[in-house]
């Protein structure tokens, strides 16, 4: 009892001394190394998540993808028919998505003779950044903001299934391209407007420039903005969506000669020359950038084709009127394994999803 207080005192002194060294070192480190921006690191972290999860998934479904790839030709055959048109067909199986050879993002650039060739930088699975004429290329993104080439060129970036890629255009506009999409744009903007062309799905964070509107052309819709954030989903033969997060966007529908201005939180669906604007939770439409799929009241067939595109797996569905007309809510985190995803789908009382020969076979649960 008598010794104890002295002991504690000694320990205390040692502790204080240890703490002093730690805190002194920390103080020196903090003076020497600039404080990192937690906000910036958080954004990087979330962007990295989508890529990392994808790598894990490709391990867990490696066998399936190989099977799917072997079976499928390396051509883009998305036999995604809207369900109501598909009903006319007599075949029993409806192919919702066909897996295609998985590769790397490809950047094609226009040459002086107007031909397009793949950029000399193959954006391979390579962490190292490469800089050519001020353009920074890597396996996750390409940055044109410091493009120093003398003449602007046309460029096309195509993203294979199962990947997400980020572009920073010359005007600092940020574009996230979802799996199986492509964007055509000039390496430097000039003229009265900033014109790009989109196929597939992309999230745009457009840098504000009131003198030079940003215009996105797609097969069926155009979007015109000054500076805003929104998602555009225009995969061939499926419902098209424009979802506005911030600012304002004017959506043009040349087929029906109509224009609509969206307010933040609004989504426009355009299908079969008909459109519908409604208030939505924009998270459902924009979180794919960070590795989430939220499907809110969507057709089962559209959900399955999105999943096929992301996991790059062929999806076949039995032609069944209940399944064809089914709408549902569904959440997927990309970090989930394929097994887990299939188990979650099978939890619906009417749904049976079975992996077979590298495909997912979807039937009505008996």
């Amino acid at each position, binding site marked *: 009892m008598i010794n104890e207080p002295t002991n504690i005192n000694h320990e205390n002194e040692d*502790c204080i001394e*240890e*703490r*002093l*060294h*730690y*805190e*002194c*070192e*920390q*103080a*020196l*480190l*903090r*003076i*020497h*190394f*600039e*404080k*990192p921006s*937690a*906000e910036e*690191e*958080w954004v*990087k*972290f979330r962007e*990295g*998540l989508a890529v*990392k999860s994808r790598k894990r998934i490709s391990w867990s479904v490696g066998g399936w993808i190989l099977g799917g790839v072997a079976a499928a030709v390396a051509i883009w055959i998305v036999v995604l028919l809207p369900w109501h048109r598909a009903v006319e067909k007599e075949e029993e199986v409806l192919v919702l998505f066909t897996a295609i050879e998985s590769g790397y993002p490809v950047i094609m650039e226009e040459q002086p003779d107007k031909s397009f060739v793949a950029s000399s930088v193959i954006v391979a699975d390579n962490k190292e950044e490469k800089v050519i004429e001020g353009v920074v290329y890597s396996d996750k993104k390409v940055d044109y903001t410091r493009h120093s080439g003398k003449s602007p060129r046309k460029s096309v970036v195509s993203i294979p299934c199962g990947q997400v890629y980020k572009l920073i255009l010359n005007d600092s506009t940020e574009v996230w391209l979802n799996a199986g999409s492509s964007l055509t744009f000039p390496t430097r903007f000039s003229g009265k407007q900033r014109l790009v062309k989109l196929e597939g799905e992309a999230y745009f964070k457009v840098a504000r420039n009131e003198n030079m509107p940003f215009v996105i052309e797609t097969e069926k819709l155009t979007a015109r903005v000054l500076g805003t954030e929104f998602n555009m989903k225009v995969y061939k033969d499926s419902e098209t969506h424009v979802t506005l997060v911030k600012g304002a966007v004017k959506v043009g529908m040349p087929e029906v000669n109509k224009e609509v201005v969206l307010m933040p939180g609004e989504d426009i669906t355009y299908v079969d020359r008909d459109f519908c604007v409604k208030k939505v939770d924009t*998270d459902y439409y924009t979180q794919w950038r960070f590795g989430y799929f*939220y499907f809110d009241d969507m057709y089962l067939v559209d959900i399955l084709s999105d999943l096929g595109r992301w996991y790059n797996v062929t999806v076949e569905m039995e032609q069944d009127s209940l399944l064809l007309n089914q709408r549902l*809510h*569904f*959440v997927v*985190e990309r*970090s989930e394994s394929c097994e887990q995803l299939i188990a979650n789908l099978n939890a619906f009382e009417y749904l049976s999803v079975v992996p077979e020969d590298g495909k997912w076979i979807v039937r009505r649960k008996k």
Partner: protein
Amino acid sequence: MSDLKSEKQSIDLRRKEYENFFKENYARLYYYALHFIPDSEVCKDIVGDSFYYLWERIDAFRAETALSYMYTHIHHLCIDHIRRAKMKEANADAYLAMLQKWDTRDWEESEERIGLIMQLIEKMPASTRLVMEQCYIYKKKYRQVAQMTGLSESGVRKHVMKGLNAIRSYFSVKYKKGGV
């Protein structure tokens, strides 16, 4: 349908908690990694990997225990890195045992003291600062710093002692004033 809404809400909530945890602790974890490896790129990678590891286990995420867990994880990743890179394993013991015992209040007090020490260091002569940086950040021996600076070995030692004593006396005066 409402199941999905509530599922989304619970995922959102967990993610929000995680995001707050990330933003509140990123910097201090980064500086802890710098203790082992004075290279900001390597440390950012290590901290990022550690956060990713935590993200994969987000179902079990609890903000109260996560910090101590992250320190341990980063500690191990740093040691791994040092071994792989065949760097010298200086101070591998680190301060982990001490930090793991800390509670929220200890953390806050420590952050406050670090802030004060930064101010004290910034007032020190450039030569003292340089010597302390070499010893503390780059873990150099007095002999190596002596060669680098042209000071004698005992001169180096004196600079470090002078620096530390300035800090010690600042705090002991403060303790006395505080009546502890």
